[in-house]
């Protein structure tokens, strides 16, 4: 008698699995490469056009010159100092505004009375462009960092307040009922149901606010500051230094994307149940 044939089916199935995984991985890589290739090609085109004299290099200095200028500014410490100044306004403003906004939104979402009392007032205030109150803040607090931090905080506050309040109200009533049926109330309801239930909405607010916070801090630094990336950009305009201006623009863009990436990452860590 011959030995039974080895289960051959395993090998082809294995191969099929590998093929599927390989295809998925290649697709992922291809899209990632595309995302990098397009900006790279655009930069190269800009560089080539500048070198060929097709664009005015005074207004559009080629990327290589911007890069050189960037290294110079970084080496001299100017870029670092301006970035630090901007962060020193953005981060405290963001943290204060986010904490106050999330708290206010939470109270307004949980308590119908608070929602009724504050809702109309806050939606009226929300429609005031926050940057428009900067002169008032300058008048109140003088030419220091306080009005700049507050301008960021006010912007972030409203975004968080609105997102958090609606997140609390949108918690699935069936989940609330089921939690209540097991006797959840007060602090336990807060900890086990309301806080985690509202978290996705809070994080949406945090992400939106991170972008807006960068916009506001730069705008504030344009007009009322002697330091910071906003001042760097504005000052480069008044002194007609386009390459320095581009360095500022690139730095702001990177600051903004790193900031929202950090918020997104923190959000993922805070919500392990939403993996994938």
């Amino acid at each position, binding site marked *: 008698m011959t030995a039974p044939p080895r289960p051959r089916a395993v090998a082809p199935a294995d191969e099929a699995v590998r093929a599927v995984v390989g295809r998925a991985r290649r697709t992922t890589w291809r899209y990632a490469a595309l995302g990098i290739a397009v900006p790279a090609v655009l930069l190269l085109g800009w560089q080539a056009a500048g070198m060929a004299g097709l664009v005015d290099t005074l207004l559009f200095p080629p990327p290589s010159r911007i890069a050189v200028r960037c290294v110079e500014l970084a080496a001299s410490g100017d870029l670092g100092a301006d970035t630090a100044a901007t962060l020193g306004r953005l981060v405290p403003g963001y943290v204060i505004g986010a904490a106050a906004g999330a708290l206010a939104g939470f109270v307004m979402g949980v308590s119908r009375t608070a929602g009724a009392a504050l809702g109309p007032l806050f939606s009226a205030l929300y429609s005031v462009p926050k940057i428009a109150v900067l002169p008032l803040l300058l008048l109140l607090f003088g030419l220091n960092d306080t009005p700049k931090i507050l301008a960021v905080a006010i912007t972030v506050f409203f975004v968080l307040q609105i997102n958090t309040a609606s997140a609390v109200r949108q918690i699935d009533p*069936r989940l609330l*009922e089921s939690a209540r049926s097991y006797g959840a109330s007060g602090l336990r309801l807060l900890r086990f149901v309301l806080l985690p239930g509202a978290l996705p909405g809070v994080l949406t607010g945090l992400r939106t606010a991170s972008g807006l916070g960068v916009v506001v801090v730069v705008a504030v630094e344009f007009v009322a500051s002697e330091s910071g990336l906003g001042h760097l950009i504005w000052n480069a305009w008044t002194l007609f230094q386009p390459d320095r201006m581009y360095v500022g623009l690139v730095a702001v863009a990177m600051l903004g994307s790193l900031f929202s990436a950090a918020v997104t990452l923190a959000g993922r860590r805070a919500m392990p149940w939403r993996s994938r």
Partner: protein
Amino acid sequence: MTVPPPMVSAQDIGKFFLAADGRAVQALDGVSLTVREGEFVCVVGPSGCGKSTLLRILGGLVEPTTGTVARRPGQPPVPPAAFVFQDFAVLPWLTVRSNAAFGLRMAGVRRRAAERAADAWLLRMDLADFADGYPDQLSGGMRQRLALARAFATGSPVLLMDEPLGSLDPQTRRLMQEQLLALWQEERKTVVLVTHSLDEALLLGDRVLVMSARPGRVIEELAVPFARPRDPGIQDGPEFGRLRARIWDRLRDQLSVSAR
């Protein structure tokens, strides 16, 4: 033989709701019922007849507009009643273990003790391997078993189930009915189960209450004659079919009332 004491009894329950258009709608009208210790009572009725509302009133989740409910108080930390809902209603942000322990935690049991009790029930419900995962990673049937584990883990003598198997596919549902039957026969809890399935009511219940179209009243009460412990095979016998036909006759009139 002594009659077991009543665990939940409702006297002349009426319930009015305010509908979205501002009109008052009567959901229940003069419902009385007594559920005794260890009894399995099933409630069937047309959609919207107020049977889910009745269940919530029995559990104290909703206040009746008229009438009174008496529950035998639980021994803290054991709650007087534990619910199982149709759409599982397990909390997506808690792990499977924390969900199973949820009822105990809410009753004030310390985390360690609650999780030990939860783990024992997860094991019985075949969910031990998923204890550290999240409900999103479970199938519908598994999520429903988790909801059952959460209810059983509280140790509550009364289980109130609202269409607990209603969102499962027919095969899973039948399997879960058999599991529920076996589980009840081991635990002998007092159960009120609201269901659309006449088979489910007859397989599991000691008594079946048939409710009318809205406003819901109890229009028929039927004692299920099958001896305990029951075998799921009774569903294929002639007596089962006869009882089902009898309930269906009563129910059909009510369905046409509510369709009109």
